[in-house]
């Protein structure tokens, strides 16, 4: 089922962040939301995730949809290791070895059992991405998932995300057109 946003408005104090936003997210496609800083990209995905509520407008097609997310901040359990963080959001049936394999694939083989607070920013970001991709979900929302990664790692992660999200609906926020192109994503621009 497609996700439709009808006339979404959101205001914080005096500032109108989203004004009459309309869009359709087709099931199984990858979308990149692009726009200048402060244009309301994060606000829009926060509304989709149910973290904040829109002032006006309606969203259809989100009912009981399982969501996985990479937030702007990593939002990991700091004193837990990467494997434990990922298993937290997975189904009981998820095999620990699969999680370890996924982490090894993104270059975290030697850091599986370290508390995430001991990992670098780029490593933590990769853990957050793997967490979103391993969770049982129908919609994956990623807010600047490749932030803080060097170019080579970014390309590796783009390929990893592309491979792991086949057939899934993905909404990604980025400032980088290269990321959108790398993922063959449809681009949605939000104007300030």
């Amino acid at each position: 089922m497609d996700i439709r946003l009808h006339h979404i408005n959101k205001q914080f104090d005096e500032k109108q962040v989203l004004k009459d936003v309309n869009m359709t997210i087709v099931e199984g496609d990858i979308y990149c939301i692009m726009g200048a800083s402060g244009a309301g990209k994060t606000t829009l995905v926060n509304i989709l995730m149910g973290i904040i509520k829109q002032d006006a407008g309606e969203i259809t097609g989100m009912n009981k949809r399982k969501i996985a997310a990479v937030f702007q901040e990593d939002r990991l359990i700091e004193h837990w290791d990467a494997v434990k963080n990922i298993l937290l959001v997975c189904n009981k049936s998820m095999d620990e070895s699969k999680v370890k394999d996924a982490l090894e694939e993104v270059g975290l083989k030697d850091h599986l059992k370290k508390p995430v607070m001991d990992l670098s920013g780029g490593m933590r970001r990769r853990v957050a991405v793997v967490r979103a991709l391993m969770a049982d979900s129908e919609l994956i929302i990623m807010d600047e998932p490749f932030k803080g990664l060097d170019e080579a790692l970014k390309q590796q992660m783009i390929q990893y995300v592309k491979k792991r999200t086949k057939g899934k609906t993905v909404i990604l926020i980025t400032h980088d057109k290269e990321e959108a192109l790398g993922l063959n994503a449809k681009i949605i621009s939000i104007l300030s």
Partner: protein
Amino acid sequence: MIRMKKIINLKNNRFKILAVCFWFLLWEVGSRVVDQEILLASPTEVLLTLLELCREIDFWVTIFFSSKRIVTGFLLALCIGTFWAVLSYKSRLVYELVTPFIKVVKATPVASFIILALIWISSKNLSVLISFFMVVPVIFSNVLQGLNATDEKLLQMAKVYRLNNLKKIKAIYIPSILPYLISAVSVGMGLGFKAGIAAEVIGIPANSIGQRMYEAKLYLMTKELFAWSLVIILISILFEKAILIIIHTLYKEHIQKLRELNRK
């Protein structure tokens, strides 16, 4: 690095021992200056009296009787205080309902509670009720503070990923509450013993530390009075450490890593 830590620990312990010695010495000097055993017994005499008391079976029975009741009151306060804090965190109505009670209990002098409680219950169980009343506000306030300090962003993450309550408690709430709970246990245990013994001194139940202290005061046995005070301090510390060891064992992993996190 480990050697360095050992040296620092040794230094710290040396200072602690020196501080204790200083206060004992001051006590000794004070008792010699006063030179009246009835007013101020010397630490040596108090320790000798304590050793004598240790040989009596009654001494251990008395400690068991008082500790059992005070610790029961403390554990009840730990369970009920935590339960109320969780309910208050979840419901504004419960918070508004419980808060006046907690405030009144906090502001009421222990002696008023003891005298009132003596009207309602037998002196035998008085220390259970009094230690409960004195500890419950400490537990309630600290646990609620810990819950209110829970990372909102992690709760949003849990909401998006639809984590069940058990996972939320384990991953988010317990790490948030633990530092507050440990502090509440440390403060609460001492408070429970102080209030519980005060209740026993007024209620004078048989075979209690309070009764022994009352008698010591009545017959001007100052050495015994000091010795029993020392016993109260020691068992209060002992139980506090025991409960903290249980918490540390249960949440060893959380505590170690939270400490590292705080250091960062």
